[in-house]
C-alpha cells in the first residue's frame, strides 16, 4: 500500500478542480482504515476478519447544498473525476464562487487524547489470548453460564483532510473493543448479559480493565436476568443508573440539539437558546476532548478542533452541536461536531461524548426515597423522535424498587418517555457521575459513529415502563 496516499500538490489540484465551476468551500476527506476482528463461539475462535479500506471523497459546498463524490479507486485521476462530479452542485445552484487558498504544510494531530504513533494493528496472538481469557473467565464464573460469545476488534483509522481554506491535517485514531455476551440457563429459564469496554487506546488497555473483569460483569448480568421477572406495565418513579444511563442524555436531549435539525427548524429545541428546557438540576455538555473516550478526536471529520460545548446549564438551553455548514448558515461557529462514518459519507453534526456532571444525592438515599418504582441500572440502547422528543430505552439490567428497597430484577423491558418532559421531571441528581463503559455506537441518517456517554444516577418522577404484566 501507498504510505502517504495524497500529497499537498495533488490535493491542491483536486481542490482547484472542485471549485472551478463555483462553490463556496471544498474539502477532500481521504481515509485509510484497517481493522482486525476476532470472534469466539462455542469455546473456540471462530473467525479472524481483516478489513482494509482506502478511499477519498470530495465535497463542494454552495449555500445549504453539498455536492459529493467518493472513489474507492485511489488515484489523482479518479479524485479529479470525483471533484468534477461533486462540482455538479455548483453548476446547479451557481450563486457563489470562491478559490482555493494555497494549502499550508500538513499539520499532524496532537497525541493528548490517544497515541497517534501506533502504526500497526495489534498482533493477532494478543487478540486471541485476550479472547481466550474472556471465555474461560465467563465459563468458570458459574455453572449456569452455558453460552459465551465474545469478540475483539482493533482498528486504526488514518485520515488526511485538505480544505479549500488552506488547512491540511493528518490524524491517526486507534480504537479497541472487547465485548462478551453470556447466556445463563436454569431449566427452561434463560438470561443474557452483555458487557464491553475499550476506547481510543490499544490492547494494553486490557492490562488494567482485564478480560476477567469484563467477562465477570457480563456473567453477573446474565445471572441477574436469569432470575428476572416479567416487568410491570405502567408509570413509575424511576432511577436511571450512573454511567450507562447517559443514553438518556444522548437520546432525550443531545440529538435534538444537533445543528442540522435546528437550522432546518425541525427540532423541538429550535430557536430556544436561553430558554428553560429542563429542571435546574440538569447540566449537560458534549466534549470531544476527553482522553480515550470513543467520541474523542483531535479534530473532527472536517478538520475542526473538538471542544467542550455546553448544551444545557442548570436547566437553560445554551447551545447546539455544529458542523461547518450548519454553523455558517446559523451565523455560529463549528463546535467540532462534524462527523462521518467513512469516506463514503458526507459529514453531519453528531455528538462526541455527552455527559452530566455530578449532583449531591446518595444512591442509597435515592433508592430509600421511592415507594414503588424502577431502578434502570443500565441500558442496551435507545432511539428518539427529534420533532416530538419521544424516546425509548431498552433496559439491560433493571430492578423494581418496593418500599425503599431494591426488589426483583425485571426482564429486558423498554422505557418510553418524552425528552423535554423527562428533563423537567428530574428531581434528584446523584453524586456518582461517571462515564459508561466504552462501547456505544450512535446511528443517524444511515451513518454509525462511536460515541461516549456518562451521567450520575438520576431520579425521574414518572416514566412509562413497557412491561407485559398489568400494573
Amino acid at each position, binding site marked *: 500500500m501507498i504510505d502517504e496516499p495524497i500529497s499537498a500538490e495533488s490535493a491542491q489540484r483536486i481542490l482547484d478542480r472542485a471549485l472551478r465551476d463555483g462553490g463556496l468551500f471544498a474539502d477532500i476527506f481521504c481515509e485509510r482504515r484497517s481493522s482486525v476482528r476476532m470472534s469466539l*463461539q462455542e469455546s473456540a475462535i471462530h473467525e479472524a476478519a481483516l478489513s482494509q479500506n482506502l478511499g477519498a471523497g470530495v465535497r463542494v459546498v454552495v449555500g*445549504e447544498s453539498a455536492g459529493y463524490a467518493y472513489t*474507492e479507486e485511489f488515484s489523482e485521476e479518479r479524485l479529479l473525476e470525483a471533484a468534477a462530479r461533486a462540482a*455538479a452542485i455548483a453548476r446547479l445552484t451557481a450563486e457563489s464562487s470562491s478559490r482555493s487558498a494555497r494549502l499550508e504544510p500538513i499539520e499532524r494531530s496532537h497525541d493528548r487524547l490517544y497515541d497517534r504513533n501506533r502504526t500497526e494493528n495489534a498482533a493477532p496472538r494478543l487478540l486471541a489470548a485476550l479472547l481466550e481469557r474472556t471465555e474461560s473467565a465467563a465459563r468458570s464464573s458459574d455453572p449456569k453460564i452455558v453460552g459465551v460469545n465474545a469478540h475483539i476488534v482493533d482498528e486504526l483509522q488514518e485520515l488526511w483532510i485538505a480544505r479549500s481554506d488552506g488547512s491540511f491535517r493528518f490524524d491517526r485514531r486507534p480504537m479497541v473493543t472487547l465485548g462478551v455476551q453470556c447466556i445463563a440457563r436454569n431449566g427452561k429459564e434463560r438470561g443474557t448479559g452483555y458487557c464491553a469496554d475499550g476506547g481510543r487506546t490499544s490492547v494494553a488497555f486490557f492490562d488494567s480493565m482485564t478480560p476477567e473483569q469484563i467477562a465477570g460483569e457480563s456473567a453477573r448480568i446474565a445471572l441477574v436476568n436469569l432470575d428476572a421477572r416479567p416487568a410491570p406495565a*405502567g408509570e413509575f418513579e424511576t432511577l436511571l443508573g450512573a454511567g450507562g444511563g447517559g443514553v438518556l442524555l444522548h437520546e432525550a436531549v443531545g440529538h435534538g440539539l444537533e445543528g442540522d435539525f435546528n437550522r432546518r427548524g425541525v*427540532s423541538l429545541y429550535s430557536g430556544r437558546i436561553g430558554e428553560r428546557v429542563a429542571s435546574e438540576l440538569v447540566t449537560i455538555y458534549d466534549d470531544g476532548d476527553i482522553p480515550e473516550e470513543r467520541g474523542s478526536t483531535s479534530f473532527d471529520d472536517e478538520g475542526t478542533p473538538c471542544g467542550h460545548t455546553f448544551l444545557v446549564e442548570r436547566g437553560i438551553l445554551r447551545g447546539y452541536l455544529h458542523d461547518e455548514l450548519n454553523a455558517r448558515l446559523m451565523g455560529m461557529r463549528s463546535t467540532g461536531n462534524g462527523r462521518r462514518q467513512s469516506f463514503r459519507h458526507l459529514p453531519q453534526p453528531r455528538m462526541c461524548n455527552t455527559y452530566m456532571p455530578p449532583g449531591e444525592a446518595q444512591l442509597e438515599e435515592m433508592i430509600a426515597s421511592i415507594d414503588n418504582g424502577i431502578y434502570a441500572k443500565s441500558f442496551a440502547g435507545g432511539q428518539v423522535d427529534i420533532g416530538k422528543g419521544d424516546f425509548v430505552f431498552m433496559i439491560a439490567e433493571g430492578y423494581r424498587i418496593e418500599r425503599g428497597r431494591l426488589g426483583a430484577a425485571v426482564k429486558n423491558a*423498554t422505557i418510553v418517555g*418524552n425528552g423535554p418532559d423527562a428533563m423537567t421531571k428530574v428531581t434528584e441528581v446523584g453524586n456518582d457521575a461517571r462515564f459508561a463503559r466504552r462501547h456505544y455506537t450512535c446511528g443517524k441518517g444511515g451513518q454509525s459513529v462511536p460515541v461516549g456517554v456518562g451521567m450520575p444516577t438520576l431520579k425521574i418522577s414518572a416514566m412509562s415502563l413497557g412491561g407485559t*404484566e398489568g400494573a
Partner: protein
Amino acid sequence: MREEEARARAQRAVEIAMALGASDAEARIVLARRFSAAARGERVTKLDLSEGRSLSMRLFIDGRKAMLVGTHWNDDEIRSGVATALEQARYAAVDAFAGLPEARDLSGVDLGLYDRAIEARRDEERLDDVRAVERSIREADPRVDNSNGSQYSDACVTMALANSRGVLGSYRGTQIGIAASPVASDGAFKRTAHYGSAARFLAKMDAPAEIAREAVRRTVAFYGARKPKTQSMSILFDREVAAAVLDDIFSACSAANVAVGNSWLAGRTGERIGSDLVDIFDDGTIPGALGSSPFDAEGTPSQRTPVFESGILRSFLFDTYYARRLGAQSTGNAVAGGIGPNTFFLAPGKASLEELIASTQRGILVLETIGFATEHASGLYSRGARGIAIRNGELAEPLEEFTIAAPFPEMLAGIEAVANDLKFDGSITSPSFRVAEMQVSGSSSAP
C-alpha cells in the same frame, strides 16, 4: 463490460489466495454506481454520485477460516491483504464445519433484477422526482410547514462470485428509492414522519406525489395525540411496523443466532408456535423483487423456504457453515459476513386493512414503533409506539408515548387476522396483521 471485469477480478483474487497457500478461497466483487440526492424547499441540498468497488474474500487454510474485506483491487493489494489475513487465520480454531459449499451451476437464471430505464435516467429526471416529492408534501396538507428533506437514490450494482471449487457466477441488479420527511407544527412540537418506497424497477415505483401524500398522512395523523391508559387490548400492526416485527422474527430464525443459544426459537422446530394464519417464507426467487438474487453470497442457488406453515415452525435459515454445524441444508441465506434474508415475509390474507379495522372492537392501529431488539434469547417484544385508537370498528383519537409488549410466542399465537396489503418492497416485508391482545403501557391506570 463491467460484469466480465468483475468476474475476472474475482477469479484472479482466488488464484492469488491459492498461490499464497490457502487450501480453499472464495472472492466476491461488488461494483456499484450510486446516485443520491436530497431536496428541501426549492433547493437541491445534496447531490452524491459515487462509484464503488469492493472485494470480500473467505480464506480457508488447514480447517481454519479468515475473512478479508476492503478496497483491494490490483494484484499487489490483494496479495498483501490475503497474506495478512492468512497469518491471522492461524489463530482461529480448526473448525470441521468450515468450508465452501459444493459447486453448483449458477448460470441461466434470470429473475429480472435489472432495469435499463434506471441506468438510462438523466440526472435532471432524478432531480425532478425529488423536487416533486418536496413540492407535493407542502401541497398535500396546509399544516405541513417544513421539511427535513426529501430523498432520492438509485444504484446499478454488479456482483461477481468465484471460488476455488470452480464456482463462477455474476448478476446485475438495480434499485431505486424515494422518501419524504414532512414536518408540521403542532403547538410546541414538530410532527415528523419518514415514509418511502423502494423497488428494482422505475415502473414499479409509487409516484412521487403518492409517496408525499402517504408521508403527510402519517405526519398529521398524530395532531393532538395523547397517552393511552395502561391496559391490554388488540393491536393492529400497519404493514410498515408489521415488517419491523418480522425483522425480529427473522433474527430468531437465523441459524447463526440459533447455534449460539441467542434465539427463543432454538430447539422448537416442528412445534406449533403461531396461529393458523402464520405462514412465513423466505424466498429468493420472486421475479423482480428487491430481495431476490439468483444465488446467495457463497453461490448457493436461491430457493423458497417455508419457515412457518400454519403456525408450525418448519425451518431455520442457513448458510453452508451453520447448516453443517446444525445438520441441515443451506437455504441460500448467506450474505457477506453472516446470514441474511432474501425476501422474508408473512403470507397475506384476503381482507383489506379497512376491513381489519372494521372488525376490531377495542384496539390500536399502530403506525410507528421505536426501539429495537438487543438480544433474541428471552423472546420478549417491547417497543415504544404511536397509533390511532380503534373503537367499535372505527378509527378514533391518535395516541402516543406508550409501549406495547408481549412474549413473542404469545404474539404469534395471537395473530387473528392478516390483511391483503403485502408488497415486495424490501428484504423483510409483511401485510398488516392484528394480534388479539397485547399489554399497552401508558399513563397510570389507577382511577
